[in-house]
């Protein structure tokens, strides 16, 4: 069910995927064509260089003359400068094209990610999406832009060399290029083999990373179990395998170039022998007359023509290597959100980029679950014919074991998922008749493992209401008693909190996430408590903050710490997707059912920890 990094080994190239991606390159026509034009110029000049040498030999060296050398040098210089500017142009523009493609693909994919439903996020690891968005897209845009450069240059250059050689002496050309087809074949074969080995060692590499991870995380356990030796031996086995694999891969790639070059040397040797005869005995030679200059030029072409062949083989292998990346990126872009506002609704209420807030009906907060059933696509039924009526302003608490369906109720309420049967009404209207943003703009949501964003404290509080004034931000912080700790920070409200709020304690993060909700002032509030508790001091502050927020709005609490919900208007014990017990705290205690057991157990633990703690404080003061 979970999408994860698969070991993907493409056997052949699927051109449709690439065509689709090349459309991104064509979006930037100016860049695209500038690259092509400058490349053609560079390739032509590259082909011309040996001809300059030939000219110098035939016109100056052999006749021992320097007539016109000045002009020749000047022309040479001109060509060099032209080529140099050609190189600068194509690198710069290809670079620009690469970045433009990466930018556009990322932008499109990110937009798609903002629309995708939770069914996607629930089965996809963040790491997977990250890898697609960062490395895969980089790799693809690099491929698209630079393979264009490489293919074009290689093709033109090879073609130019062959044509020039044929023009200079077609017989010699035919003989010395005889190895070319064989060479092309071997190149492709070797490249494929290299690719296979690379994959092998990459796989081992990720296993080594995993082993390091486990070795470090489990270091203490390893110590207590005295497993050091055994673990190290297993690890050594792995690194040994890695060594074998990388060496094998290195040997294949080390042999690639020498094999190609030796094969090429057969052609060059033939050219030297037969061409030399052509210079020495113009009448009798098999290939006919040849000047010394032509011979030198010919030899340079012979040595150079193998580069583009290798290059083309290399690109083919690279494409094969990034085929998997391409498919994964395209499939991510093609993923459709399960929950989509219809066109009419978008017409009226707008989309995420252009919300028509003027058409939005205000929300009072009456919520009805009307025979709601929910099951995942795989048929797993998590909520079964669930009905619930909540008046505006009430607080509903949900209690039950993991997997009982509490989170599903909340997810349905937030419209992260939609019911598979039945309907959910907000203020009497099926919420599917409104836009997603309409509901979500009136939601407040707090996870007790709070999620904050890099940036300042102020930015974070303001998250739900970007246009709030500083005064409003401070007011919100004060209401949840977050201000004292904020002012203790070096720069107060302007303190950077680090990645995901890394510089704050969990309790502080929670307070900020409450301030964030208070500022947004939503009609509907959802609190999803975490199982782990935090230190008692902050806990008191947080209880106060919660009490404040619950005031005056419809609230749902998924509770683990039962002390939080004693004042709830209604507590629902959920079991197997159904309501098992329902009532206020007092009513449920009297029933002596599941809630009673759970509460007593927690109460017992709390009191024990409390008295252990207070005992500690007593001894400290003694």
């Amino acid at each position, binding site marked *: 069910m979970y999408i994860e990094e698969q070991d993907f080994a493409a056997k052949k190239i699927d051109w449709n995927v690439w065509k689709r991606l090349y459309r991104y390159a064509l979006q930037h026509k100016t860049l695209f064509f500038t690259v092509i034009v400058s490349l053609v110029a560079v390739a032509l000049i*590259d082909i011309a260089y040996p001809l300059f040498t030939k000219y*110098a030999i035939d016109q*100056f*060296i052999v006749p*021992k003359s*320097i007539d016109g*050398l000045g002009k020749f*040098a000047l022309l040479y210089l001109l060509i*060099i400068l032209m080529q*140099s500017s050609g190189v*600068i142009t194509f690198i*710069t523009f290809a*670079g620009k094209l690469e*970045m433009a493609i990466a930018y556009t693909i990322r932008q499109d994919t*990110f937009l798609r990610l903002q*629309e995708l439903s*939770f069914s996607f996020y629930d089965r996809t690891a963040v790491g997977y999406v*990250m890898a*697609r*968005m960062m*490395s895969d897209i980089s790799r693809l845009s690099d491929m698209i832009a630079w393979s264009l*450069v490489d293919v074009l240059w290689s093709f033109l250059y090879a073609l130019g060399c062959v044509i020039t050689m044929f023009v200079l002496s077609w017989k010699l050309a035919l003989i010395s290029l005889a190895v070319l087809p064989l060479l092309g074949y071997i190149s492709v074969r070797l490249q494929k083999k290299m690719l296979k080995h690379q994959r092998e060692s990459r796989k081992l590499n990720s296993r080594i990373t995993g082993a390091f*991870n*486990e070795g*470090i995380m489990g270091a203490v*356990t390893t*110590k*207590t179990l005295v497993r*050091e030796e055994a*673990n*190290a031996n297993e690890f050594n086995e792995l690194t*040994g395998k890695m060594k074998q694999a990388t*060496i094998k891969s*290195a040997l294949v790639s*080390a042999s690639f170039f020498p*094999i190609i070059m*030796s094969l090429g040397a057969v052609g060059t040797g033939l050219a030297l*022998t037969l061409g*030399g005869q052509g210079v020495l005995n113009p009448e009798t030679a098999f290939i006919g007359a040849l000047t*010394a200059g032509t011979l030198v030029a010919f030899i340079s072409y012979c040595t*150079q023509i193998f580069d583009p062949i*290798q*290059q083309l083989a290399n690109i083919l292998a690279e494409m094969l290597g990034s085929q998997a990346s391409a498919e994964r990126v395209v499939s991510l872009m093609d993923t459709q959100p399960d929950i989509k506002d219809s066109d009419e609704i978008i017409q009226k209420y707008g989309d*995420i980029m252009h919300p028509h807030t003027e058409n939005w009906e205000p929300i009072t907060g009456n919520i009805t679950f009307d025979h709601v059933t929910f099951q995942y696509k795989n048929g797993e039924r998590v909520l079964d014919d669930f009905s619930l009526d909540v008046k505006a302003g009430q607080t509903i608490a949900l209690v039950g074991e993991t997997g009982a369906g509490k989170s599903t109720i909340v997810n349905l309420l937030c419209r992260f998922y939609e019911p598979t049967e039945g309907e959910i009404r907000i203020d009497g209207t099926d919420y599917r008749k409104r836009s997603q*943003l309409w509901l979500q703009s009136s*939601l407040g949501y707090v*996870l007790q493992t709070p*999620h904050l964003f890099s940036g300042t404290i102020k930015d974070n509080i303001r*998250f739900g209401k*970007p246009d709030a004034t500083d005064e409003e931000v401070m007011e919100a912080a004060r209401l949840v008693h977050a201000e004292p700790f904020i002012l203790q920070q070096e720069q107060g409200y302007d303190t950077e909190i680090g*990645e*995901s709020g890394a510089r704050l304690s969990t309790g502080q993060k929670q307070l900020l996430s409450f301030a*964030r909700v208070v500022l947004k002032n939503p009609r509907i509030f959802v609190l999803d408590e975490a199982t782990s508790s935090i230190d008692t001091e902050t806990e008191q502050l947080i209880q106060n903050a919660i009490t404040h927020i619950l005031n005056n709005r419809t609230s749902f609490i998924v509770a683990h710490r039962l002390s939080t919900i004693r004042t709830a208007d209604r507590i629902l014990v959920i079991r197997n997707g159904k309501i098992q017990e329902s009532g206020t705290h007092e009513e449920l205690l009297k029933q002596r059912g599941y809630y009673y057991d759970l509460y*007593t157990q927690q109460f017992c633990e709390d*009191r024990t920890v409390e008295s*252990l*703690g207070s*005992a*500690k404080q007593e001894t*400290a003061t003694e």
Partner: protein
Amino acid sequence: MKKNEKKNNKKKIPIEKTEQEQNGKKAVPVEQEKTERKKTNWKLVRELLQGHRRYIVYATISVLFATAFSYAVPYVTSFTLDYVIQGITTSTPKFLLPIVESLGGRSYFVNSLFLCGIALFLFTGLNCIFTFTRRQNIAYASEGMAEKLRNRLYRHLEDVPYDYHKHASTGDLVQRCTSDVDTVRRFVHLQLMEIVRTFVMFGLAAVVMFSVNVKMTLISLAFLPFLTASSFVYFKYVQKYFTGSDEAEGALSTMLQENLTGVRVVRAFGQQKSEIDKFTKLNETYRVKTYKLIKLLGFYWGLSDSVGYIQIALSLCMGVIGVYRGTFTLGNVAMFTTYVAMLTWPVRQLGRILADMGKAGVSLGRLDEILSAPVEQEPGKALSPDLTGDIVFDNVCFGYDRYNDVLDGVTFTVKPGQTVAILGATGSGKTSLVHLLQRLYPRTAGSITIAGTDVNDIEHGHLRRNIGIVLQEPFLYSRTIMENIRICAPCSTEDDVYCAARTASVHEVIETFEQGYETLVGERGVTLSGGQQQRVAIARTLMQNAPILIFDDSMSAVDSETDAAIRRSLLALNQSGITFLISHRITTLREADMILVLEEGRITQQGTHAELIRQAGLYRRIAEIQDAISDGGDVE
């Protein structure tokens, strides 16, 4: 050949990133400043290359031969052009002439021109063979080094004391062990020999060229020093643009990560639009910064290209003049221009290699930091005695640092067959107490003896094998449940495993899994609940068959009935051994032969349940609270 490398590198340079960046993770600037001031630790490289040094020597020899043969190829052409075709003897080296003459002089070669072709093929072939052996040997050396480095790091991280891991960050360590190792490996693999080769090429070319014509050599190499210098300057300068691009990428990737992990918050607050705006801005910055870098690279390659070609053109034109004046030959011209073309590429690359050398140095520093952390020492005699006997704590003190005592004068004695239960608040020293027994930390004062031997005198492997401990948050290896349970007893039968699992009340649970005992645990497999993990860990510890068992709050996530069931079967099993139990549950504590109440690092109460319940104190208070609640008393 030159062309290919150049084209390839042109594009490779801006995008070539370390392995871990390619995996889609962002580069974490791990305490760069802290390690950078350390001098590059090449001693470590030398040490690691020990045993692989001959490969480096072979590779260097290969470089010499390969370069020599690659230079011989233009020589063949030059000889053919001058001696065979034109009959000029002046450009043929003195040592070659007698050999050539003895073969039959020019006329012989004119008739057997194929010999030149064969020579050309032969020299190219030899060049290829030595190029291959160079790469082969350097692969042996670098991979051998990487293997050794990885193994040493792994072993070292297992051998450092417990305290080290309590303070280290896993992510940072893993990063160092993977990407820093790779940086060093790549440097040795790809670039070390490139430096050698550049110098060999330059040196050999200079010798050959000078022997032909001093003045022409000076002219032909005139621009090379300039090219070298500009390469150094340029790559030093461009470094900050590399960093700029990396940082922009890091920022983009961080933002993306936060957005994805916080997708619920974003949606619930309806903030998709502002997130898109944020992303657009960072995406744009990354694009602009990287483009700037590529542009700079483009100018460098373009301009240095033209310098290289101008150098070739200069040699060609001056060669023409030389031939005109009779001081130079056609063969010379062909040879010189070829050599110059061969030299310009590596020279332009030199600066980049040096920049990378700096990076490899930083990585080495970071790795050295890990490797120089002291490992666990045997403080005493490292004996391996029989450990069935009394455990005596005598006035034991301990603190993680000098100022805060965690344990302060703890004294008690346990007899074989007894169960000791410990009650105390978080931070009262319960865990430290049992850790001292296993010598995961050194005590600061007092003595701990097991069966009469001081724990400091017991070899730590022996000590720990004889003390089975179940940690508060147990760690399971990512293997099957079967493998996890029998990890300390590889020779045990499956029935032994089932038996241990039954004792730990986890057998039935495991049987309900689709793959039973073959279920994979951890990241790549099933996530077990806290209680299940604890019970598997208990089963694993039972397989150790240790005379001393410690349960450090290890049934906290198990419900009280299962807890009781496990304790009952343990009791039946461990008749003669000693068991330590840390728990908050009075029902657990009351059955112990001795209960220790720890407060602030001291034992404040000691005795059986019957004794302690009669004393005023923490134990009775807790017992009363729990009794009242379980009797269905007032919980409101």
